[in-house]
């Protein structure tokens, strides 16, 4: 049965190198971010950082987040984010995004309920720099039930205390609100999330070979957690219902690519 359900190489003799296998592979579709129709082509960066929109260049993981946001907040009425942004369904939301760049920062600029945050080393929590408020996601200064939508993109795997962040996100979300986030995921999903590193008395202790991603300020950022399907249980402990939102459930090889949406009932 697994032979049928696992992502299958078109040529079984082909070596299974995910990034190489996706290069120059394509599908015809519509961009969930900007609505452009066209051919989405893989590069050698792997699925998530690849398949850029031919028009807005948003990569797969950002477009998947847009698709999850449209599902939860769009009432079935919007097929792409930049259209959704102009309507009351979006304009009436209060939105926190923990990012200083990326497509959502661009398209939500000027939105009346949009707050951008980042953890600056040299700005006090709650103070702002260039319109971006300094926040530690493990202990935010926002009031309870402040936001309808929280967006983080490849942030959750870098926080030292993910349980604290989920608790904080649950606290600042309004009832009916949702945290839409991207994280690296490999399928089949591991049963249990795995700590790659942890903080002990303020010092980083590596439990596995350290892995770094590039941060929003281009500094290396340590990966603390490889997430598994117990992400659902982690959120349930804080009253959130988490779902892996697949944007391409029919496209072989992209079937497993997903954003996560965690909803506060």
């Amino acid at each position: 049965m697994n032979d049928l359900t696992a992502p299958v190489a078109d040529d079984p003799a082909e070596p299974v190198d995910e990034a190489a296998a996706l290069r120059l592979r394509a599908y015809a579709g519509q961009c969930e971010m900007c609505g452009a129709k066209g051919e989405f082509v893989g590069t050698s960066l792997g699925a998530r950082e690849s398949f850029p929109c031919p028009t807005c260049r948003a990569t797969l993981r950002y477009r998947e987040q847009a698709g999850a946001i449209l599902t939860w907040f769009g009432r079935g009425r919007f097929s792409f984010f930049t259209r959704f942004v102009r309507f009351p369904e979006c304009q009436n939301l209060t939105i926190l995004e923990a990012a200083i760049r990326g497509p959502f920062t661009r398209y939500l600029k000027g939105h009346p309920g949009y707050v951008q945050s980042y953890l600056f080393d040299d700005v006090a929590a709650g103070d702002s720099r260039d319109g971006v408020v300094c926040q530690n996601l493990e202990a935010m200064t926002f009031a309870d039930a402040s936001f309808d939508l929280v967006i983080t993109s490849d942030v959750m795997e870098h926080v030292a205390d993910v349980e604290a962040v989920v608790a904080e996100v649950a606290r600042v979300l309004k009832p009916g609100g949702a945290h839409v986030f991207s994280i690296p995921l490999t399928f089949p999903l591991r049963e249990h999330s795995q700590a790659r590193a942890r903080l002990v008395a303020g010092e980083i202790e590596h439990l596995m070979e350290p892995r770094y991603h590039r941060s929003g300020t281009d500094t290396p950022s340590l990966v603390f957690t490889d997430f598994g399907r117990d992400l659902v249980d982690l959120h349930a402990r804080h009253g959130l219902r988490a779902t892996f939102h697949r944007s391409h459930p029919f496209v072989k090889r992209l079937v497993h690519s997903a954003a996560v949406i965690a909803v506060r009932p």
Partner: protein
Amino acid sequence: MTAPATTAAPVPFDYACTVCGQPFPAVEFAAPGAICGCGAGRRTMELAAAVLHAHAHGIPATLLELAEDPAVPPPRVLDLTLDSALALTTPDRLVRGDPFGDGGPAAGDGTDAATNVIPVDLAALPAGDASLDLVLLRDVLFWVPDVPALFAEVARVLAYGGHAIFQESFAWQFPEATVEADPAAEPKRRPAGGTRKPERRVIGADVLDLMAAAGLDGVGYRPGLAVDPHYRDLLLVARRATRLS
């Protein structure tokens, strides 16, 4: 003049069936009828994607994976779509019903739960209170006489945290507000479940408000959004709100 540098042309992906996982050529996705060797057509695959999303947190990629996943309890299902997908993959605890007839006998001889289809009155679903995890419906909202009554009945039979999935088709865009047909005019008739039902309304997003009034939290889910802009289906996924303690 120099010749342009040769660049390799991108190769299109195959698609894969959300019922069984088997690949098929992408161009076939728009075809009517069965696409996959398992018998699933496009509407079946979209429905399957919605079931996986709603009932199983999006963890399994196919209904087969769902059926074989020991961590996901098999759903108690009332399937009113006349689609056999769930009969193939999750026959346990499945009741299939035909809501399109006029009270006459439906298909099946009553001996096999997976293939037997019982006639169903949408005003009185054949299930006890809070007894089901999934209720699946297709092409009912445009003709059913009383939409709020249907939502109330669906809410009655759903367990807390259970889901109803309404698969509805559209000519173009999902409108903001429902438009009721003129009751005095001769009704347009649209296909539904092998019959032609009178079009009493073209539904809009305000049906989600009617769901909310019945205790169902609804979203509009389009599993084919990123791959097929010319969607014809919207899946209204309604979750029975958790009982407040």
